[in-house]
């Protein structure tokens, strides 16, 4: 039972001042084991804040990040799942499923987490699942102003992942979930 928080595109301080207070009250240290962040934090203070929620933090570089040393892509293995992380501005057309699927095959991961569009989406295709946690501050994107703050929490338990989607709609936190099972044929560990 591993809890993984996926979020990104906060754009603090340029486009938003802070996370919505309702989100902040839920993000309490000690509950989450890993954080994967798609990028565009943009400043070090946000990095430090995320570190207080969970020390195991993985970030990839977004185009507005002030820290230049984050990698472009990252892969990690949590439990039985391989997760891939990328900000998404590198994948053109932005948010296009096929292009993201190409990236997923390149990285060879089961779950690909990208951002940049500031819209929550979750796609399934033959290679695996692509999740976009959206923007957790509701910052405007290069495409649209109409953005709901959202983030994603994944509960990885064996071969099963339950994805909890947290969205702030009209000032209320709405939680939905998505179930996803991995077919065991693709599990193999390095011998």
């Amino acid at each position: 039972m591993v809890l993984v928080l996926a979020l990104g595109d906060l754009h603090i301080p340029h486009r938003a001042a802070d996370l919505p207070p309702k989100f902040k009250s839920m993000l309490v240290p000690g509950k989450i084991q890993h954080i994967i962040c798609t990028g565009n934090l943009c400043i070090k203070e946000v990095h430090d804040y995320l570190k207080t929620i969970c020390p195991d933090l993985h970030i990839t570089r977004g185009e507005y990040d002030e820290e230049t040393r984050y990698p472009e892509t990252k892969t990690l293995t949590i439990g039985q799942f391989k997760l891939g992380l990328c900000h998404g501005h590198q994948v053109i057309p932005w948010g296009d499923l096929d292009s993201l699927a190409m990236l997923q095959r390149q990285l060879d991961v089961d779950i690909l987490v990208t951002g940049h569009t500031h819209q929550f989406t979750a796609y399934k295709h033959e290679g695996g699942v692509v999740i976009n946690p959206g923007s957790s501050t509701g910052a405007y994107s290069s495409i649209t102003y109409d953005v709901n703050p959202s983030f994603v929490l994944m509960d990885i338990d064996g071969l099963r992942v339950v994805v909890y989607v947290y969205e702030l709609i009209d000032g209320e936190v709405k939680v939905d979930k998505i179930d996803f099972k991995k077919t065991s044929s693709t599990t193999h560990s390095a011998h």
Partner: protein
Amino acid sequence: MVKKKVPDWLNSSLWSTTAPSANDPPLSRSSEDLSTPTAAPVPVTPPKPQVKDHKESRTSGISNTVNRSNNNNNGNNCNSNVAPTDDNGGSSAGPSPEDISRQAQLLTELSRKVINMRELRRIASQGIPDGAGIRSTVWKLLLGYLPPDRSIWSTELAKKRSQYKNFKDELLMNPSEITRRLEKSTVCDNDEPKSESVGMLSRSEITHGEHPLSLGKTSIWNQFFQDSEIIEQIDRDVKRTHPDMHFFSGDSPLAKSNQDALRNILIVFAKLNQGIRYVQGMNEILAPLFYVFKNDPDEEMTAGAEADTFFCFVELLSGFRDHFCQQLDNSVVGIRSTITKLSLLLKQNDEELWRHLEITTKVNPQFYAFRWITLLLTQEFNFADSLHIWDTLLSDPEGPQETLLRICCAMLILIRRRILAGDFTSILKLLQNYPPTNISHLLYVANKLRSQPSD
């Protein structure tokens, strides 16, 4: 006003502890053989002839059993409880006739169809021999886990064990599994439709507002995270229990499984008793119970040892629960009042010593008695000795608390000479590291305190 005099028998040199004397070569040799980290109890050479035979046979008997159980502790095997008739730890004398007769008495008593509890208590209070799993059965009877009627033992055991299993299933699940089970009951489990290989993943509603970051009081996730602190504490304490014993500590699979059992018991207890949860020290009270039950030579008993230990632990703790509750510290039932009772008992029996402790040197009994009382003397003596003390503690008809106080009082009286000669620091050092002593003497004195006429 008549000052309460110390009775003459207390003043005899019989009671003062001495360094291991050279007069007992067989016993000291066997203790060397075993190379135990814990101190073997010291055999005292009694000067008075009329008690010599009785004491000597008793001490050799007890020391034998102790050495044998030390053997067990280090032997890294759990079912090696040897019947006193076979084993001779090195060159020590064989089990005393006392021992054998007591064992025979216990066995006959246990084999009756309906056990006479008074009789059992009487024999058990003299000490239970280590062999043949007697202690395990006797303790279960004394704690009321097994009924006196033998014929219903198997049904009772089965009932209790399945009850414990249910507790574990309910309480030890993590929230992911719980949500999965909740879902299974509401939605039938259909396979992931392979046809939906491309496209948006369908979102579904969450059940009962349950999500991992929920802050609601009734949320299983929230409760889980709140409990995780207690579970961490339990985990740390379990790992630290008796680090010198292979049974409990180390990397062997045996130790790990025993630690797991201890952990499960404590977690189930904490979850079922929200008022008291887990307090540090409960692991120390649990350890001897589990050790004794797990080392039962009967296979069937060993398999159910965890469940048995749980219920016996609950029973044992029921008399002492209030000591663990911080809010009750200053109340009539709390630890402070029990310590006061001890103090009064000491005053009744040995006023000079009491005066020296309370008034002259101002040694607050809380400094030493707290650990003695809350942990039921498990930390003051080596493991085997504490098992013997527990025999008396559990079997005494007056009840464990009264007996405990008497034993503590006896502990103080036995080293009165050293206490009277000491100042605050030395007394405290002495009492917090109670010197190794002969347990049978200690229990004898404690017993004597009972028959003192009370004022």
